[in-house]
């Protein structure tokens, strides 16, 4: 949505309808019909039929449900999406249910991943060992 941001190259800026800035803490379940950009902290479930962008400074404790999800910050919770990309500094602790998964080198993921195709039975394809020590974010 904002021009200077590089994290969300995959998104059409026009799609973003909700922005949670880095000075804001959100508590509770949040759903939107449009795309959501998170740069602050969220404690609760976030749902949309469109896209979710978790910025590099963002911290989410709760489930994420969306179409395309990009995580450059930290997420502690399960993620359900058509497509998930965990960026190089992104941290995800939780189980994934996605159709397309992309984990960039340097990213940290701890949990189970279930990859499914549209209309077909979900097939668990990978189980990762829980990382014992995920470094704290600065």
């Amino acid at each position, binding site marked *: *949505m904002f021009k200077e941001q590089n994290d969300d190259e995959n998104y059409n800026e026009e799609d973003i309808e909700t922005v949670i*800035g*880095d000075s804001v803490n959100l*508590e509770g379940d949040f759903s939107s019909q449009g795309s959501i950009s998170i740069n602050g902290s969220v404690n609760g479930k976030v749902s949309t039929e469109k896209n979710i962008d978790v910025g590099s400074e963002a911290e989410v404790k709760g489930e994420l449900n969306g179409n395309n999800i990009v995580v450059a910050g930290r997420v502690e919770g399960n993620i359900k999406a058509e497509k998930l990309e965990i960026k190089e500094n992104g941290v995800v602790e939780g189980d994934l249910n996605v159709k397309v998964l992309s984990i960039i080198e340097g990213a940290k993921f701890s949990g189970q991943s279930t990859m499914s195709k549209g209309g077909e039975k979900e097939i668990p394809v990978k189980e990762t060992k829980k990382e014992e020590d995920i470094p704290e974010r600065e």
Partner: protein
Amino acid sequence: MYFYICDNFAKKSKYSKKLEQISLKLAKLGIGDERAQISLLRPIEEIIREALMDKRCTNIVAIGDDKVATQSIDMIAHSGRKIAFGIIPLKPSKIAESLGMPNDLDVCCQEISSRKIARVDLGKVDDYYFLTSVGIKVFPENTLSSVFKKVFRKKSPIINFDFLEGYKIQAQVEEYSIINMPTADDMKKIKEGNIESRVNPRDGLLDVLICENGTNSRKKSSFLQTRKLSIETKSKIEINIGGIKMKKSAMKFKVYPKYLDLIVGKNRLF
């Protein structure tokens, strides 16, 4: 029938030429109708009450600034009558700018005469209706609190927002706007955030814009939409409702969809 409400300040001699120009133009356009002047003896409440009691009255036009416009809109909305509101600005007016009513008085009168109507939502904060936005400044300029902020590097108080949709947010910044219809100032902030396509006074939603200390970069600002919210803070903060300032520590906001007919010009901002 058109009913014109002249602001109290219009009595000053420097506005007499402008008023004469407006009267002549309105008469020429055949919409001179009735006019009343606000004064100490005739407050705006009384004038609008009289106008609202007249069944012939279908348009109320404020001649003045944002304050008289905001007061008029509040009273029209409370009355529940289907009356169109318009403004002829005598001073710089954010509301006139939003409605596309130019400073050129002849052109402005022409726009009033054309009576192009746009039905828009109205916001309400506690018992007060507002058309444009409610600005919250934690450290209003030229006040003691702004001096304290500079000298003691005082932090902004924490403000709690409780949204009807079931979530809450907590923020600690200096500026907030609850927008129904954006003013030019709001549009500037909105454009910096590239969210102008989302701000619409006919979508049945209020837009909450939270800007950190004057900046509106992507990471620093927040933008959320809601139908209803409440705001609470420990200390009283100044809010500005279309030129009317007051201090509050708790307030409730609500949007009333498609609630007011406006007479708008070609260059309206929505």
